[in-house]
């Protein structure tokens, strides 16, 4: 049941990610992968919001392990960071995309948490 609910909620998150990150990426002419950044930070913020409220295990599964996990992506973040240039030395953009996103992701969890708690 866990796998089934997680799969359904996660797949809806994936479609939302595809539509939102695609829309942002085509509207912004930046060398930085802003579409992925946006969905990842929004997804982290959603998780923060959910930790701040009392949730049932099913609610957690739907919103956090399901939707938000499917809405955000780690693999695309990694490949896009690598494409910003790692060799012979990591480019400033790659370092920024790695470090700033890591910090902002944790910050978005904290901000969401303090909003609802």
């Amino acid at each position, binding site marked *: 049941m866990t796998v089934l609910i997680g799969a359904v909620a996660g797949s809806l998150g994936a479609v939302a990610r595809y539509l939102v990150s695609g829309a942002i990426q085509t509207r912004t002419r930046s060398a930085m992968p802003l579409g992925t950044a946006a969905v990842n930070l929004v997804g982290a913020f959603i998780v923060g919001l959910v930790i701040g409220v009392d949730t049932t295990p099913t609610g957690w599964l739907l919103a*956090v392990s399901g939707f938000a996990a*499917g809405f955000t992506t780690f693999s695309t973040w990694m490949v896009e960071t690598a494409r910003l240039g790692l060799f012979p030395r990591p480019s400033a953009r790659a370092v920024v995309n790695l470090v700033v996103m890591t910090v902002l992701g944790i910050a978005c969890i904290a901000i969401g948490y303090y909003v609802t708690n």
Partner: protein
Amino acid sequence: MPDSLLSRIPVAIAAPAAVLAGGVLGSALRAGVGLAIPPSPGAVPVATLAVNVFGSFALGFYLTRRERAVVSRFSLQFWAIGVLGSLTTFSTFSYEVFVLVEAGSMATALVYGFVSTVGGLMAAVVGSRIGEAWR
């Protein structure tokens, strides 16, 4: 599905449908790995680490292979955006680092963050190099 049949479906429907189908598979796999490797409080979350690093490797491999091979329509939406996008997760990663920091396990949080990001990057690079060398 044969491409002739697939080509009759409008792209605006077929592309998100491919993401949805891939998303079901990727999310189910991630949930399954989560059940197989239960988290232990204060320790590095191995399940998320495993799917994130493996997914980064597989995406690096897929994207370079895709440039060199004939793939079916919506393969990118199914495999890259659907399956591998959903198998891996940024929100759970951030949440787990947050929880470790909150619990005062600063060293574990740093190790987890470092191994995930640097390991994920290396995995993506190795995957793409193997994709280049593949025949």
